[in-house]
């Protein structure tokens, strides 16, 4: 497999071959991108099983829409955009169920902070608040933040995947941090109240 990967490692070439019905080339694409798609889906969904489902669904969509691929951007950006859309669809389906779970988690984490043995804000104590703060972000802000910090994408890559300008992505990233900081600060103040 590794030898074959070396032969066809250029995704653009693999995509062209897959377009002509070469299933081996398509399989190479699966091996090349499945982890990356999983990371992206996991960043958005934070749910392992759902993220794995997103990986499968993304490759199915890719297989069905191979012929519509036009070489305007890179193949990887196009594939990541498909994956992002599939993940967002899954996220929206799960949102109502998830909101209930998050609200429950939020309540328990706040309670644990209030009754915690130490009164200083260690990083481990802040972690549940960061999780909540990420969940509270608007959809685009959250995706920009997650792609930036969990995926290590550059602003340009995020802009390509989301189909936005780099300026808009930077602005969303800035607002995401502001909102998260405000949320955590407010939560800590509530903790200090008698």
């Amino acid at each position, binding site marked *: 497999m590794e030898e074959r990967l070396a032969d066809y490692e250029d995704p653009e070439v693999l995509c062209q071959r897959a377009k002509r019905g070469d*299933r081996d080339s*398509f*399989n190479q694409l*699966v*091996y090349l991108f*499945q*982890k990356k798609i*999983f*990371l992206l889906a*996991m*960043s958005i969904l934070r749910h*392992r099983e759902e993220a*794995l489902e997103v*990986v*499968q669904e993304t*490759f*199915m969509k890719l*297989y*069905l829409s191979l012929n519509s691929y036009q070489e305007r951007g890179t193949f990887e950006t196009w594939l990541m955009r498909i994956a992002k859309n599939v993940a967002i669809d899954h996220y929206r389906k799960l949102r109502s169920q998830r909101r209930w779970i998050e609200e429950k988690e939020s309540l328990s984490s706040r309670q644990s902070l209030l009754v915690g043995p130490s009164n200083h*804000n260690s*990083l481990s104590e*802040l*972690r549940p608040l*960061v*999780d909540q*703060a990420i969940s509270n972000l608007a959809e685009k802000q959250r995706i920009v*933040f997650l792609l930036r*910090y*969990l995926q*290590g994408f550059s602003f340009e890559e995020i802009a390509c995947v989301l189909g936005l300008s780099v300026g808009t992505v930077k602005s969303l*990233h*800035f607002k995401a*941090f*502001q909102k*998260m*900081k405000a949320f*955590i*600060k407010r939560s*800590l103040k509530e903790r200090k109240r008698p």
Partner: protein
Amino acid sequence: MKRKCPFSQKHLLSYFLKESSEEKTSEIETHLRTCSECQQDLAILKAIRVASLNIKREIEKEVEEINWEVMARMVNQRIDQLDRKPAEVSTWRLFHRWAVAAGVMVGLLIGLLSYHYLLRPLLKPKEEIIKAHSFYQVPDDFLERVDEEMARKEVLNYLEKCRLVFLSMKQATEVDLDEAIILPKERIQDLIRQKRYFSPQLDSFRLSKARQILEEIDTLLFELALMNERANPEEKKEVAKFIEEKQLLLKIQLLQQELDEGEGTT
């Protein structure tokens, strides 16, 4: 209420994201030494970054735990199913069409057979019973024959009445030619009316051979109707002459015989 630090509001995040100019960066760093609020905010921002990195590590750990060979095989299997699906659908559609057509044909066949073997035998005796036991069962030409018989009787009745009128008039002329006679005007008018009633039936009921004699009778009756009730001797002679010349009484008699003979055979 404690006022919020303007640095924290405006510049701290830019500093943290390394988007501030060098000049601004050194200004913020100086400020940070004295401002506890900004120190706390910066600590929160750092915590966010560290927590994010932790989340990233957790996700990466998840990636390592997954068997990607199996995952790729699962993707392949699902794509194989995608490839097979259209063929299955078309086969099913083809089968579906044939099934519908066959169903319709079988339905028609069952319908025809059930009509032939079940419904017809049920209906047939009913029709036969009606035919056998009906009091109204008559031959097709029954009504026609009834009408013809009635017309024949009517003609016979008319002829007899005419014969009696003409005979009485002939006898009157034979007794005394010079004396006037009184014409039975009312009877003559009745006979003219009666003839008008059955006249249309003469052609349709095979009585056309009587038509000529009846026309001659009708002419004479009209003549008589135009005369005065008390006919003078000359008129009397003309009437007698007409009856004689045309041999009306004989013809009436012959026609009566013929119609009588035809009774029951018409």
